[in-house]
């Protein structure tokens, strides 16, 4: 397998720690209704405390591994993210989020066709193939969900 981004595990542990702290802060906003044990705040706070402890242990363990890796590596520098590899993933995620935002305005057909077309091209389909694939996917999903299952797909300003 291709070499991995070494600090990833350590950064993911820090991310978990931040999430635990945010959750703990949010848990104090829960209305206790005057009940302590078994009340609405009890279960979330017990679990969050547990998660916080686990995240701290993870940060220590993964941090130890990361610094050991840094010490052993020749130049003692944190490896940088290879943006060329990450950008296509970001593009797919952003395209999917834009799809969600735009579909209500433009409607199902144009947005679905565009998203399928872009993703097909990313996987090096020829333009004509990508056009055909996007058309088939758009119509098939419309038929399955809208016609067969009566799922109300957004129609947008054009009505389709």
């Amino acid at each position: 397998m291709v070499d991995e981004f070494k600090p990833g595990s350590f950064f993911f542990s820090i991310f978990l720690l931040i999430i635990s702290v945010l959750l703990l802060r949010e848990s104090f906003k829960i209305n206790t209704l005057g009940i302590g044990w078994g009340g609405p705040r009890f279960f979330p706070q017990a679990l969050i405390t547990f998660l916080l402890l686990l995240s701290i242990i993870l940060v220590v363990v993964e941090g130890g591994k990361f610094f050991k890796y840094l010490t052993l590596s020749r130049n003692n520098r944190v490896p940088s993210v290879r943006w060329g590899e990450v950008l296509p993933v970001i593009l797919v995620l952003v395209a999917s989020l834009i799809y969600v935002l735009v579909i209500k305005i433009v409607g199902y057909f144009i947005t679905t066709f565009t998203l399928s077309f872009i993703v097909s091209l990313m996987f090096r389909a020829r333009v004509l193939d990508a056009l055909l694939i996007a058309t088939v996917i758009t119509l098939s999903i419309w038929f399955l969900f809208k016609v067969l299952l009566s799922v109300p797909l957004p129609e947008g300003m054009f009505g389709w």
Partner: protein
Amino acid sequence: MVGIDVIYDILTPKIIITMLLTSFYGLFIGAMPGLTATMAAALLVPFAFWLDPLTALSMIIVMDVLAIWAGDVPAAFVRIPGTPASAAYTDDMYELTKKGRGQIALSISLLGSTLGGLIGVFALILFSPELARFAINFSSSEFFWLVIFGLISSVLAVRGSVIKRMTSLILGLLISLIGFDPVFYSSRLTFGIPELEGGLSYIPILIGVFGMSEVIRRVYYKTRGVTITLPPTEFKALELIATGFSTIRKYFTRFITGSIIGVIIGALPGAGADIAAWLSYNISYRFSKNKDEYGKGSEEGILAATSANNASLGGAWIPSLVFGIPGDSVTAIVLGVMMMKAIIPGPRIFVEQGRLITSLFIIFLIANILIIPLGILTIKTLGRLFLRTPDYLLVPTILLFCIVGSYAVDFTFFNVVVMILFGVIGFFMDRYGFPIPPMILGIILGKMLETYFVMTFMKGGIIAFFNRPLSLVLIILIIFVILTPKLGKVVIGRR
């Protein structure tokens, strides 16, 4: 003669055509990510209104049985569980597909589902009153320990760092607590986002962590010059059936245990096919000699889980028929249809509606047997389709199915955002060694755990968790499951 009358009742063109149509409908719903058997059953209710009771109920039975099996098809070929009942062993099925044994994985699930389902029906026919009486003895305290048992098993059934496994479980439990709490209706952990007040549906999460994360993985590795290809190995129909049977013979204990777990879990009110599959998979792992294969394409694990989820369908009818308490969400709809047709569930249903109930049992048997020919047809056609499809067609299709499937849960795009978010989380968790199954089970069982905890605590404080014999049996079982490997090592060491 009730027997001959029943045969005449079933062998009518109306029933036969309805069964065929709903079996294809079940296969279609099961194979579509985001659509559940419950939703499919709900969509059948308007038709049930115009049909006689036998046709209406047989429609739901056949759809349910076929949909639960068909959920394995996208799990095997695109790593998206078609229904939540297939989530427990999705990774195993997909790993086998990567090894060129996707059709074999499905043939094991096909035979496991059919025979497990038949065991479920026989349990329904032979032990309905006894099993219902056993299930009704479960109070909130026993349910609490049962849920704990399931959660602990999920942590024990995966490999890797204990800290990471526990983190995954706790994350899942916390996700399940988002929104109104089930007992006091206090709003929790919503960060002021109104859409979170109602909690997160677990279907978009399932689609995200399995389906969307697969899309991300394929895009990511494609840019690194690594293409994930699935070997297009094909098997003959007879070969598939023979392999399915030989796997059952090889792992017969797993199959029987899975089916029994399925029947018992099904008979418990509120616990359905998904919980049965998880529990059976986890127990099977605990007692397996091939633990290393679990999560990497374990035929044993697939058989244990898949026999449990279909066996639970028969089990779920037991409390529904005997007490009018639904065993799962589909039987809740079944009870609604029964009420609509003026059929009152209860112990007397076997006397007052004897002919109808016997007919339903036979339809259950037929539905389970129908899985084999229709399943083989599905494996051959969809298998060929999925395995020979290039990435530039497969990836946009998976992505669009993930998006529209999540939207179809309750027609909101918020679910799509949740699905995308969990796709990213699933991708990173997978990459950094955080197992997904404990998180999923935490999400499914979290609210139940809290509800039973609060109910039991309010009944009698901490003592209420330990003062019933059935609770103690479950506690001993939990301790036994945790200590099994250590005890095993001690015994082997002494020898």
